[in-house]
């Protein structure tokens, strides 16, 4: 049974000085057309690796894909050549927004030049048409005074403006699937809300699917239909968002939710303050889990369904204990 976008049994690793290291082990993710999926995890959990893997942009020399498939409408992207990815997918069907707006834009070209290159390549536009389409793209991301922005260099814009420009470039060629890799990570809090709202609006107006990658729950709880929690490269809980938030089962999910600033009493109730040495062969979250039991040091839990599409990888959850 294959849906619009699916990831199955994906295992990715890297070659380092100390040997090979596995960084991603994802059993299953599926996203429908027009759906926003939130992937939450902390730094180093492998979220960006996943994003790059989808577009086949991992460094060829050091990245290893052990097995798995990433399917868009049934086509496994991992089997495509770079040529095919370039021609068919990148920019045209799948597009990506990166974390750091300053480093994502080429500092020696103006906004117009960078936007123009992409439009020119994908749609063959030139001259006046190119300019007007560029202005359209910038207006779509609610940038005022679009025509003067076209002539500015990235360092002349504010952080929020830059991120909007990047969204404009990413969506300029009618991609149907957007990967947003922590798009608000490097922005001030007040600006964050604006970008989130923008992405949400665009998603609804253009009916695109969005894989929204974040490092805290507060960013995904409202806009996402389904959420996946990534810890150390492994999916530890996934399911419909309201289910996850109100009936969370994995200790890490609890920790994430409790970290959302709320009323004084509820604050940090489930926050984990434990740090133990890791146990090989056991659950990867063992070292921080406040509720660990014996079996957690012996076996590595896999995703099991609890109710409906809500799945979790935790021995406590299996037994219905909290």
């Amino acid at each position, binding site marked *: 049974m294959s849906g619009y976008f699916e990831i199955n049994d994906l295992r990715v690793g890297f070659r380092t000085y100390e040997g090979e290291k596995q960084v991603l082990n994802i059993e299953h993710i599926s996203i429908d057309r027009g759906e926003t999926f939130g992937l939450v995890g902390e730094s180093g959990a492998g979220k960006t690796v996943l994003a790059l893997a989808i577009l086949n942009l991992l460094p060829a020399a050091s990245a290893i894909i052990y097995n798995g498939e990433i399917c868009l409408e049934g086509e496994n992207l991992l089997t495509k050549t770079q040529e095919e990815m370039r021609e068919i997918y*990148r920019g045209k069907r799948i597009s990506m927004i990166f974390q750091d707006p300053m*480093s994502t834009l080429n500092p020696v070209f103006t906004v117009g030049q960078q936007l123009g290159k992409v439009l020119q390549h994908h749609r063959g536009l030139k001259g006046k048409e190119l300019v007007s389409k560029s202005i359209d793209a910038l207006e779509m991301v609610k940038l005022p005074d679009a025509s003067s922005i076209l002539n500015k260099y990235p360092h002349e814009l504010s952080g929020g403006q830059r991120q909007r420009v990047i969204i404009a470039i990413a969506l300029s060629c009618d991609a149907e699937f957007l990967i947003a890799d922590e798009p608000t990570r490097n922005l001030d809090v007040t600006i964050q809300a604006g970008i989130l709202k923008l992405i949400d609006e665009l998603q609804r107006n253009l009916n695109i699917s969005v894989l929204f990658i974040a490092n805290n729950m507060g960013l995904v709880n409202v806009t996402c239909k389904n959420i996946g929690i990534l810890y150390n490269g492994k999916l530890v809980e996934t399911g419909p968002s309201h289910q996850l938030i109100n009936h969370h089962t994995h200790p890490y999910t609890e920790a994430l939710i409790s970290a959302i600033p709320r009323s004084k009493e509820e604050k940090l109730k489930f926050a984990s303050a434990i740090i133990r040495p890791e146990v090989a062969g056991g659950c990867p979250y063992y070292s921080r889990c406040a509720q660990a039991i014996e079996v957690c040091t012996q076996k590595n839990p896999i995703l099991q369904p609890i109710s409906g599409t809500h799945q979790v990888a935790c021995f406590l959850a299996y037994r219905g204990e909290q």
Partner: protein
Amino acid sequence: MIKFTLRRLLLGLIVLFGVVLITFILTRVVPSDPAAKWAGLRATPEQIELARIQLGLDKPIYVQFIRYMTDLLNGNLGHSFRTRQPILSDLQSRLPATLELVIISSLFAILVGIPLGVVSASNKGKLPDHFSRLFSVGVVSLPTFWIGLILQLVFYRILGILPIGGRVSLETTLFMDIPTITGFITLDALFAGNFTVFFDAVWHLILPGFTIGMYPIGLVARMTRSALLEILNEDYITAARSYGLPERTVLWSYALKNSVGPTSTVVALSIGYTLVNTFLVEAIFAWPGIGSYIATAVTGLDYPAIMGVTIVSTVAYVILNLVADIVVALDPRVRV
């Protein structure tokens, strides 16, 4: 931007003053007596004294320095011990020949070195990269004067296809009228429509130009490669690829433009090396340029000539670096 240029110019002037000071100190360090040298081998003590007064060596040292500086500012570099001519006119007549070589070898460096560096960086770790790297490192290890000799051996002595030296062949000098407008034989011949002379001159440019150009090719290739490698690791390159832009555009347009800064510094540096390498190579190829002039000056210990060439080359080098700095500052990111 203008403020930056002015500031750099001012700095350049201070530096030039320092250069003049150092060269002056050098001229006074010689173990032998310049007056004796000027007067000649068979001069009498009175003639040497006369020479001393002529050269102004009897005055106190600071007076000498002031005179030295004013002379320089007037374009008077003194007279060569050997040719007895004003050094400036000696240099002027020889400049075009050397410039031809410098231009040819710089062109070599840029046209071969940069693409080599780009190919090397984009194929990092693979065969083309290893070859280019070995080539670059090999080429900068070759002694220029030696490679000139070897090339002469191979192409002139053994294969007999290229001339051993000179700017034009003997027949051309004897039988043809070499036009002299700019002093660049190649350009002059073109202007005059005399293609025989033109081809002859170009033919003679090949060996010396290539000899001098080898080192800069290696230098430019290595620098381009390392600059590009850093750039290719940047986020905006990954982003550009994620938009589906073809690799060709990503490399040659996106990445390369970011490397203009370090590249122009290297090009300036390699032109500087070219300048000095001509000193070694011109003598080998009997090329009547500034290089052979200084080579003879050095062997004959013709101090004023050595000094004159040093000052002129240094001034040229300082100007070159100034231009390179300005080009780097044109980068929109650089806040000046």
